[in-house]
């Protein structure tokens, strides 16, 4: 099945899709997925979240922004560009997560915003 058209992307449909994708990935009944449920409380691990992100990106043809923390360029002298920031385990200094969502509701809200942004282009 190809990406869902924006016209179909009503809030209700997006919430239902998000719940059904999360339920499938985590193998839990969709009824348990209330908007305030945190993904980690539902037992999600990083590979589950990756699966959820990929499924949503494919369904809506969107790119979900994730905070990268890489040093990618190597200079002529062989040194990398040192883009890595001063982070310790536990996210950045403000305690923020790398992910723009924590709960089921956050995921639905984020997808809706991305779908709307795509439609307005």
């Amino acid at each position: 099945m190809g990406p869902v058209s924006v016209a179909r992307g009503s809030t209700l449909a997006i919430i239902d899709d998000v719940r059904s994708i999360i339920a499938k990935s985590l193998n839990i009944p969709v009824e348990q997925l209330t908007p305030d449920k945190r993904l980690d409380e539902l037992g999600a691990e990083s590979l589950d979240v990756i699966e959820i992100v990929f499924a949503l990106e494919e369904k809506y043809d969107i790119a979900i922004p994730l905070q990268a923390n890489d040093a990618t360029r190597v200079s002529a002298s062989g040194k990398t560009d040192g883009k890595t920031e001063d982070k310790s385990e536990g996210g950045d200094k403000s305690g923020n997560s790398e992910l723009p969502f924590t709960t089921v509701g956050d995921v639905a809200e984020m997808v809706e915003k991305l779908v709307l942004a795509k439609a307005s282009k």
Partner: protein
Amino acid sequence: MKFTRRLMQKRWVQKTIGVAAAEYLRLVWMTSRFTMEPADPYRLYERELPVILAMWHGQHFMLPFMRRGFPFKVLISRHIDGEINAIAAEWLGVATVRGSGDHGRRYHVKGGVGAFKSMMDALAEGWNMALTADVPKVSRVAGLGIIKLASTTGRPIFPVALATSRRIMLDNWDRSAINLPFSRGATVVGDPIRVPADADPEVLEQARSALEQSLNAATERAYAIADRLPKGVRSAAPQERLEIDRRVSNNGIIAD
């Protein structure tokens, strides 16, 4: 202890230790003689680029010297130890992706999700990716992350093990081997492991198990070469090897 911890969080301290570690590893590289098995593993890579290199935690410090001009990125955790590792890797010209997997539910602080996407992007851009197959705190048990990376990107995994005859085995969770100068070194590369894009959980598990076995075999072989075990004498199995290393580490340095 609190003071040490606070000190370790200072960027200048991390940078000093990271650069010193990198230069120390360079000294080990320059004063040691490494043999490879197969003799020219780069021939294997060349046909398959870009590739995913898999290692065990604690056995990977000399890897930056093995890349022979191939563009590499390495996955390094966001932990303070990882920060120092990253500084050392970058000083030696290896680019980094930061994050790690997690056995629990702390994906949102470990950075594994973003790191996975960064690794996909890196492979798509032609970078080779090097990462440890075991997830932090559970040594020498391959995780599914690297298998899914291979499945998603279609890139082969090459198991790699490095060992030196002179080393200090640390008493930490991954039995880190600190390579010492003036060593006989060995690099062993296993056969590539490919994971189909449509792999179901059973196939993923088979690939995970195959990688684990191949990495154990490569590690065993690398130590056997480095320790110059007599012909016909097999190196101890990886788990026994860990036990031996644990006993020997009580005495500190393993001499030639």
